[in-house]
């Protein structure tokens, strides 16, 4: 028997494969297509205190091996989530990680506190790629101090695992990872989407209503791997590797560079059953390679670290 599970703080997840926030709804929509009980867990769409309408269309545009989105964090709000979605999620035999978005530090706290005594919530993932209304809409996630402050404020409010989801749109993501580790985060998720845009040359208009949006999918996989590698070298807490995963090999790449678990995002849209195939594929890989624990792959990259200083000479 190969060990697939892994533990975060006080929670044991069945395996190391999850579905990423915003790419699997609230976990009930695709139930005919995926057996989520075979996953390590589901990360919910980001929830804010009040429901959010989201951005006007178009919200989606395909790009080379990827896509841009500007959903605008459309969500039903935490209370409706608790009333309408959590009862179903509670019946599942899989980890439930609730992702939280907010436009003020206080809102993060409120949402988390609203959830914390509810049965069925296993952990929190904090989406810091949100505009800080106090600072004129600048993203929390690109400000290391704000990211740390959010973590510090949330930490005392819960005994459950607290995962901070980092944005790749910063110079040194490892600084952010270290800051939240210090502030008591149990893990980091790396990466959220990369800022991008696309233009319709016929109409001369941006292809997204919000001009820019978030790039995801296989196109960003090399970027995500580099960020996960950077973070995994910098902190001791586990890393959820995210970005363009479309196959078992991709998931292995993330584990090797140091991710303790992976989240499948955009590819859920293309192949809803992919996450389960990856969970099963990792077990097969372990069997073939005579591993007793998938965890043995984590950080097992055979890299000549001396060379990596050459990286800046591209």
């Amino acid at each position, binding site marked *: 028997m190969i060990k697939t599970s892994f533990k975060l703080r006080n929670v044991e997840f069945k395996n190391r494969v999850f579905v990423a926030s*915003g*790419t*699997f*709804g609230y976990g009930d*929509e*695709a139930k*005919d*297509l995926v057996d989520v009980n075979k996953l390590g867990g589901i990360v919910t*769409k980001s929830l804010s205190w009040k*429901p959010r*309408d*989201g951005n*006007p*269309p*178009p*919200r*989606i*545009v*395909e790009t*080379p*091996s*990827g*896509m841009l*989105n500007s*959903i605008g964090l*459309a969500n039903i709000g935490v209370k409706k989530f608790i009333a309408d979605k959590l009862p179903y999620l509670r019946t599942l035999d899989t980890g439930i990680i609730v992702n939280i978005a907010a436009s003020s530090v206080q809102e993060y706290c409120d949402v988390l506190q609203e959830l914390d005594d509810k049965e069925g919530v296993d952990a929190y993932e904090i989406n810091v790629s949100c505009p800080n209304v106090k600072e004129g809409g600048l993203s929390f996630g690109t400000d290391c101090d704000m990211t740390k402050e959010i973590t510090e404020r949330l930490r005392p409010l819960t005994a459950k695992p607290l995962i901070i989801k980092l944005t790749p749109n910063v110079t040194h993501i490892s600084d952010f990872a270290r800051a939240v580790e210090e502030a008591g985060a149990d893990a980091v998720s790396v990466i959220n989407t990369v800022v991008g845009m696309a233009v319709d040359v016929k109409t001369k208009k941006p292809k997204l209503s919000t001009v820019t949006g978030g790039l995801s*999918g*296989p196109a960003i996989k090399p970027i995500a791997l580099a960020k996960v590698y950077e973070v995994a070298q910098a902190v001791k807490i586990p890393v959820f590797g995210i970005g363009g995963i*479309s196959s078992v090999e991709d998931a292995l790449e993330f584990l090797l560079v140091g991710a303790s678990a992976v989240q499948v995002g*955009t590819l*859920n*849209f*293309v*192949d*809803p*059953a992919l996450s389960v195939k990856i969970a099963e594929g990792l077990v097969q890989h372990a069997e073939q390679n005579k591993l007793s624990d998938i965890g043995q792959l984590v950080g097992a990259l055979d890299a000549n670290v001396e060379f990596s200083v050459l990286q800046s000479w591209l």
Partner: protein
Amino acid sequence: MLQEQAIVEECREIAEGIYALRFRSPLIAKQARPGQFVNIRVDEGIDPLLRRPFSVSRTVDGTAEVVFNVVGVGTRILSEKRAGEFLDILGPLGHPWEYTTGFDIALIVAGGLGVAPVPILTDFLLREEKNIITFLGARTSSWVAPLNMKNLHIATEDGSKGLRGTVVELVSDYLSSHNVERPKIFGCGPTRMMKALSDLAISKDIPCELLLEGEMACGIGICQGCPVEVVNGEKRYELICTQGPAFDCRHIILPS
């Protein structure tokens, strides 16, 4: 709703640049209702990345057919499929037209590739023993005409075939000159046409359901990528892929 590897039975060009692709799927053939769609992965690679949505056009003997225009890379790849190949299909998806109650005479109004779902709609309306009057743009009429269309009226803007004018003008003229009892409009086509049709339906006080299109990433309600603005809804937007694609024209604000 299911995801399956369906076998292509046939893919043929039915008009210039327009193809009909038929695949075997007893389940989709059985479950699909008029206005529903399938989401097709045109290639196993990752570019193009996303599935492509197409209305179910007909279902016959355990097979389903989609009809599409080659407008880009996805539809080009699809047009090159050959009998015997496998196609990764998700469906049937979406909320169908209400084709059973609330009317006696169905006015089907389709412009451009909006004609695609007309055959399945006609089939189901006939099963309900409804009267049907069909108004089509000309381009693909040569393909649908031999099918089961009822009371077919064809329009072209230049009058080269059928009547001269837009399909909506055609409907408007028809309604002015005929007494249509308990009608309901089933509309499908380009946004501009749908807007005009919606205005007509409202001004004549006729129930009207429109089939919307829009960018889609998932087609199953998990990405929030396909909003349409609604009035009198709980929320400002509803999802075209799950709450539509068929919407009461009075409930939505068509994008301009």
